[in-house]
């Protein structure tokens, strides 16, 4: 059984919802999720973020759904940490 414990994602999102609301939406998916966001680029309609999510057992499917639901788009998975048990 493997568990994903850290993800670093490259995300493109519209200005709304703002980075705080967006981060909260992701963090609310798991009790122990720790989410860190850095805004890398901003243009007229969108912003590019680097999002780091840490937790004991990250659910990538629900994270990806929450990203889409908030109007954002996952561009790439830049880092992954997985623990095999």
């Amino acid at each position, binding site marked *: 059984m493997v568990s994903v414990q850290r993800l670093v994602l490259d995300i493109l999102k*519209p200005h*709304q*919802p703002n980075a705080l609301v967006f981060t909260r939406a992701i963090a609310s998916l798991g009790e122990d999720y720790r989410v860190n966001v850095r805004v890398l680029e901003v243009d007229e*309609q*969108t912003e590019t973020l680097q999002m780091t999510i840490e937790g004991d057992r990250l659910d990538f499917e629900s994270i990806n759904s929450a990203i889409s*639901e*908030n*109007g954002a*788009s996952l561009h790439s998975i830049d880092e992954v940490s997985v623990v095999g048990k």
Partner: protein
Amino acid sequence: MELKQIRALLEISHSEEIMRRYFVVNGFDGALTMLGLIMGFYVSGSVDLAVVITSCLAAALALGMSGISSAYISEAAERRRILTKLEEAMVTSLDESHHARAVTWIPWLVALVNGIAPLLIALIIIVPLWLARGGMVLVFGPLLSAMAVALVIIFLLGVFLGRVGGTFWLWSGLQSLAVALVTVGLIYLIG
């Protein structure tokens, strides 16, 4: 659709400001229309309460329907335009997102506020007419009482605008009241 989801859609689409604006603008429309109609009946000397109530109700309903339909058509078009531009910038479809849901739901919410505001305010204004029709004796008579209610509502709408805009509430209320009194004066001159 849950309340939490509606709040999210309102936040994403910045619709709270639009709804507040529509409430005041169309509430003002409803109040001024009722005031004008009742003043018209007053100066004409014809005081068949049943005719006054029916005319006011018909006008209130027409204002409500106009508010709902016009706001829905314009908001739906505007939301679709915004979504299309956003999808072009994101280079992806946003069909599963809150933004797409906002295109469906927000025009209805805005239309509801746009239609309900004049209808509700008009119904409040004609309460003295209903009370008089029901047999209650009003000190100043039904028409003057209804006009007084209209003037109070117009003043309060002005006060609300003042608080929202950060200006002195009394000045804002008096400005709105002045507009209403000028309207009443003009109708009196016509009569």
